């Protein structure tokens, strides 16, 4: 099951490389040149090397750990809490809250962390809401906490996948298994499961500083005024062919949008097989443990029954029974 690429994450290597992340658009150009460019039309619609494990944290009832390439994420489902009146929204469904937190060592840029955490939390909540049977815990609030241990792109999609596994593990009713994946397009190259650097590049482009890159490539793309660039995150529920969430940023034409979405859906399908395998193995494992426990408790019951039998022979049972008197109020009637 373990298929982890042991590549050292350059993001963790200290400030010198963190500065590379803050590269100016010109540097971005250089960086883009240095990137290994995939084919214009990706043939291999596969997820990254993935490792998922349910029930990693023994102190919590529902937890999951997932490695998606170099992105490492831990999700925890805490038991449902009662809604406090002040926050109780009048509705006939339970409330789902997701919290995303970065580990202190996960990312080099600390200033933007709170903002990113908030953004990811709200998007994760929106993605998970359609999956959970919220009618089953009325007036309750379910908290899902996600800890990001390592960031190498596809954060939201990995968090969604991990949360889905943790929810199923915790025994909360869900309508389906949820899987998500990311794809982006930049300068006509389609990147599936983009790395952190790729996302950073897109972000720079999006926030306007990328105009220089636009002008740079003006000669090549004189026919097109604006180049297509953008990122798509799709979370899908495959049983009913539903999409739980589709998040998009950047500029995309409808055709590209559909193309990218098809790619992500294909990746979701293969991820789903993986998640299924993991969860099925987990159920079998738990079932065997249960059977063993049952056998042990049956032995214990037998032992206790023998003890009670022995006590009965000594007439202790009557002593126990005689100690409990009848209800005076019932007797009166």
């Amino acid at each position, binding site marked *: 099951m373990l298929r982890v690429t042991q590549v050292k994450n350059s993001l963790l290597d200290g400030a010198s490389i963190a500065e590379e992340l803050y590269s100016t658009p010109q540097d971005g150009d250089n960086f883009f040149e240095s990137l290994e460019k995939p084919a214009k039309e990706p043939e291999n619609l596969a997820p990254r090397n993935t490792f998922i494990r349910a*029930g990693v944290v023994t102190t919590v*009832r*529902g937890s999951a750990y997932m490695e998606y390439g170099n992105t490492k994420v831990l999700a925890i*489902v805490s*038991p*449902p*809490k*009662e*809604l*406090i*009146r002040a926050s*109780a929204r009048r509705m006939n469904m339970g409330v789902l809250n997701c919290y995303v937190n970065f580990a202190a060592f996960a990312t080099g840029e600390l200033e933007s962390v709170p903002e990113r955490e908030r953004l990811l939390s709200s998007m994760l909540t929106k993605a998970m809401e359609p999956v959970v*049977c919220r009618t089953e*815990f*009325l*007036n*309750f609030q379910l908290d899902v906490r996600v800890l990001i241990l390592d960031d190498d792109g596809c954060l939201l999609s990995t968090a969604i996948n991990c949360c889905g596994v943790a929810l*199923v*593990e*915790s*025994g*909360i*009713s*869900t*309508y*389906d*298994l949820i899987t998500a994946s990311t794809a982006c397009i930049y300068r006509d190259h389609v990147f599936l499961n983009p790395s952190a650097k790729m996302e950073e590049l897109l972000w720079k482009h999006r926030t306007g500083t990328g105009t220089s890159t636009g002008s740079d490539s003006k000669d090549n793309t004189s026919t097109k005024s604006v180049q297509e660039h953008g990122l798509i995150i799709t979370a899908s*529920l*495959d*049983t*009913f062919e539903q999409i739980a969430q589709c998040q998009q940023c950047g500029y995309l034409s409808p055709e590209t949008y559909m193309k990218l979405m098809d790619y992500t859906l294909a990746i979701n399908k293969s991820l789903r097989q993986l998640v*299924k395998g993991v*969860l*099925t193995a*987990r*159920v*079998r494992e*738990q*079932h065997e*443990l*249960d059977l063993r426990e049952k056998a042990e408790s049956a032995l214990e019951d037998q032992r206790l029954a023998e003890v*009670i039998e022995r006590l*009965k022979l000594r007439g202790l*049972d009557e002593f*126990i*029974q005689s*100690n*409990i*008197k*009848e*209800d*005076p*109020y*019932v007797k009166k*009637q």
Partner: protein
Amino acid sequence: MSGQEDETIVCLPGERLCPTEDNIVLGVGTYEQNGYIYASKSGIVNIDESGENCQIVSVHKPGFHLTIPATGDVVTARVLVTTPKFAKCAIFCVRNVLLESSYRGLLRKEDVRETEKDRVDIYKSFKPGDVILARVINQMEQSFLLTTAENELGVVIAYASDARKNRVPMVPVGWSEMQCPQTTIKEPRKVAKVLPESSINDVK
């Protein structure tokens, strides 16, 4: 392998189990959509055919459960505060499942006893710190409504209020009294008749 698989069918959420028919009843861990029954939990499919010409399809999840008290469940709770009208409790056990976090329970004066409801005094029935058995009647907005209006429900473990360091639980000496074996002080309580396990087995 095939023989083993007949006994245990593993299913995951969103897996289609069977079409809905008149004689098939939805059990735990399933839901219905578009004329089919789907699983909503990961676990082992259980088909119960004990009922008369109907089958109950349910999914049993091995390992952990997240339990929430439901209407009709017997719960174990600790009395926190008593007022003339109600007692506030913390539910920490549902049926035989110990909860991870306690839930709020509310026991009103009218629900303490089955008979002579108007003569009930909360302070003569419960004291803070008592462990009680109760049944959930209803789920209100912020707490569960409990009742002890049954012979088998009421105070199970209680300590005398003047007890010092080494406390010994009191022994029931009647339907409305408990006695401390050390100091022989008698205190009023709504005592539960806890059935010995052997007699429960006999009824079954």
